[in-house]
């Protein structure tokens, strides 16, 4: 009997340690308080960019600190985007939220629903008396981070968009014109087939961030809704519309190509990235931010072009939508007006054309403001780096429609995983395209309803 009790206790110890959901067990210790230099207001800034991007971002914070003597931004790396989000939420619950947190685009709806936890940027700037003109931001960027009545809620910073990278050497070997990359899905499929037939590369076509590139952006480019209520912008009661004929047809195309051996599924999130610079796959749909890695690693001539579209779809191609992250201002019980003012000054600093242009040129993220873009142009960067302007052009090639403004769906990270799961089953031949899209749509709607219940005002 004694050993029984001992065993039960042993189990409880282990199981107790495994109860991850209890807030106190995930609450993070706040960032080490840096001794504020005499008179300087300190701002905690948590970000989720790995190196080298994180270093460049820290450099911007240092530049800000050196540019004046009243405020000081202390930046800390908190892990990848999801971990940074979790850390910020746990810190908020413990009453120690950072002043600024960098949050990935799919966390936008979650943050916007947390009205008491965040301070909208338009309000922050107004209170600080700093002029702030949202119209300098590209419409696709502005729309993504604005409330339905057009007020900017978070501060845009690093925005990317998916584009096509292709291997010019493989195109040449396959007898394709390396200066005429495929623009439509039928051209892409023909090119991938040719590449495989001639064995110009072991794999024709792949994709990174499969749902972002081939579901969310796919919908925008063909100008079809991803969800009702303007992709969720107009209310939390949005329903997924992802089992439309066109969505099913697209998955069918991918499944057919997968069966033919012209498309390889490279895995979830960024896992597919590796397949392009290694020369394995000749065509990839990836983030514009992949550019830096391709420059560093690819041992072949390559080019970039727009994401393809179905040429029989009316109105296609439209502008793509963004990914990346924005900066959110968080509230905390002891926050002072001075601290908010410091945050506002930092935001003013990072929206200068010089900072925007440099960030674009150093990282491959999109120049998100028109003045920043003009500066990039006047420096001749786009002439010297052909194709570096494709993301910008693709984002701005049409006025955003109701389907191309972006999306605002709660628990979006979970919805992405649902699509991964159903697509993976479809690629394994366990279900048809229609079954996969129906199941994913139904499961995503369950997730949206749960979000609606938990966040109902």
């Amino acid at each position, binding site marked *: 009997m004694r050993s029984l009790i001992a*065993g039960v206790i042993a189990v409880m110890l282990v199981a107790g340690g495994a109860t991850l*959901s209890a807030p106190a067990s995930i609450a993070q210790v706040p960032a080490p308080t840096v001794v504020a230099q005499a008179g300087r207001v300190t701002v905690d800034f948590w970000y989720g960019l790995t190196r080298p991007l994180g270093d460049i971002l820290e450099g911007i914070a240092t530049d800000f600190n050196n540019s004046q003597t009243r405020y000081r931004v202390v930046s800390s790396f908190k892990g990848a985007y999801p971990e940074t989000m979790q850390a910020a939420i746990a810190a908020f619950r413990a009453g120690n939220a950072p002043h600024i947190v960098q949050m990935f685009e799919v966390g936008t709806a979650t943050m916007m629903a947390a009205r008491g936890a965040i301070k909208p940027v338009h309000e922050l700037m107004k209170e600080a008396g700093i002029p702030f003109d949202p119209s300098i931001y590209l419409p696709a960027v502005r729309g993504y981070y604005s409330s339905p009545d057009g007020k900017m809620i978070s501060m845009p910073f690093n925005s990317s968009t998916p584009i096509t990278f292709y291997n010019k050497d493989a195109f040449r070997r396959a007898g394709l014109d390396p200066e005429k990359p495929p623009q439509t899905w039928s051209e892409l499929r023909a090119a991938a087939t040719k590449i495989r037939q001639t064995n110009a590369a072991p794999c024709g076509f792949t994709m990174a961030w499969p749902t972002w590139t081939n579901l969310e952006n796919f919908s925008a480019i063909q100008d079809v809704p991803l969800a009702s209520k303007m992709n969720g912008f107009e209310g939390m009661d949005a329903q997924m519309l992802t089992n439309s004929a066109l969505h099913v047809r697209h998955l069918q195309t991918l499944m057919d190509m997968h069966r033919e051996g012209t498309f390889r599924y490279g895995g979830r999130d960024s896992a597919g990235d590796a397949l392009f610079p290694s020369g394995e796959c000749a065509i990839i749909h990836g983030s514009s931010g992949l550019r830096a890695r391709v420059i560093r690693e690819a041992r072949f001539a390559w080019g970039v072009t727009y994401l393809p579209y179905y040429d029989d779809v009316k109105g296609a191609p439209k502008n793509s939508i963004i990914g990346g992250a924005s900066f959110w201002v968080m509230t905390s019980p002891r926050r002072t007006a001075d601290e908010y003012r410091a945050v506002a000054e930092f935001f003013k600093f990072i929206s200068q054309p010089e900072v925007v242009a440099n960030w674009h040129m150093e990282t491959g993220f999109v120049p998100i403001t028109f003045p920043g873009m003009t500066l990039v142009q006047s420096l001749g960067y786009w002439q010297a780096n052909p194709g570096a302007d494709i993301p910008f052009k693709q984002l701005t090639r049409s006025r955003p429609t109701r389907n191309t403004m972006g999306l605002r769906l709660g628990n979006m990270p979970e919805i992405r995983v649902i699509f991964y799961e159903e697509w993976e089953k479809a690629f394994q031949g366990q279900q048809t395209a229609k079954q996969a899209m129906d199941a994913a749509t139904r499961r995503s709607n369950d997730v949206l309803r749960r979000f609606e219940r938990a966040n109902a005002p």
Partner: protein
Amino acid sequence: MSRRAIFDNKILPYVLLAPQLAITIVFFFWPAGQAVAQSLLRQDPFGLRTTFVWLENFAHVVRDPAYLNAAGTTLIFSLAVVALAMGSGLLLAVTADKPIRGAGVYKTLLIWPYAVAPAVAASLWLFIFHPTIGMLGRAINQAGIPWDYTLNGTQALVLVILAASWKQVSYNFIFFLAGLQSIPRSVIEAAAVDGAGTRQRFWKVTFPLLSPTTFFLLVVNLIYSFFDTFGVIHSLTRGGPGKATETLIYKVYVDGVVYLDLGGSSAQSVILLLFVVTMTALQFKYIERRVHY
């Protein structure tokens, strides 16, 4: 004549126990209690809106097909890991217990995997078995066998089972070896004199005498396969492809930490807690009777 140490001090035992009790309460009972409380609430991630919903979260969990799927996966995964890790541990221990040249070296080498952190262990397996970047993974594909655990659920499950078992073999090996060495030689020699063969000596004498060790390891391995295999799964497959390698503990993490559904995740961990407590209690109640100390 009994030699018993007698302590008159009534407080001293509690003082000596206090640090351990404090750690247990603060780090285990408190969070476990919070999980129980949270499992009855519906709350947004920031804790701004809270509703008491009685057992709604539990109702959602048990009706969720994904949860039942995870339960099934956990069952297969745990049984396979326990069987594989304990079987190989025992086999290796029996082999190393014999007088062989360089036994010390083998023993040391066999213990190494235990010192490897789960995430590192998983990375090693990834670099060996990944279909594109893994050495063996590429070779298997080149040999004409389609191997891609990123898309094939069965292969993914096999891979995480192998990786998780490999991590635990060392632990079982040490305990089995110690267990074997504590069995008096005279018993085995007596059996040999009575005409028992190698096989008979092992199954009729050694194995029953090893039962306390085996029983202890059974409990530890089950707990390991339920809770400590998170790192291996997280680094190798993240529960995919599909939900092929999503075990119950992985689902608790994903739902709570990634999807921020604190109520649902807490309900799952409470169920898990009750399940393992029950299972361990049953083990001690029924299996322990057959253990010879």
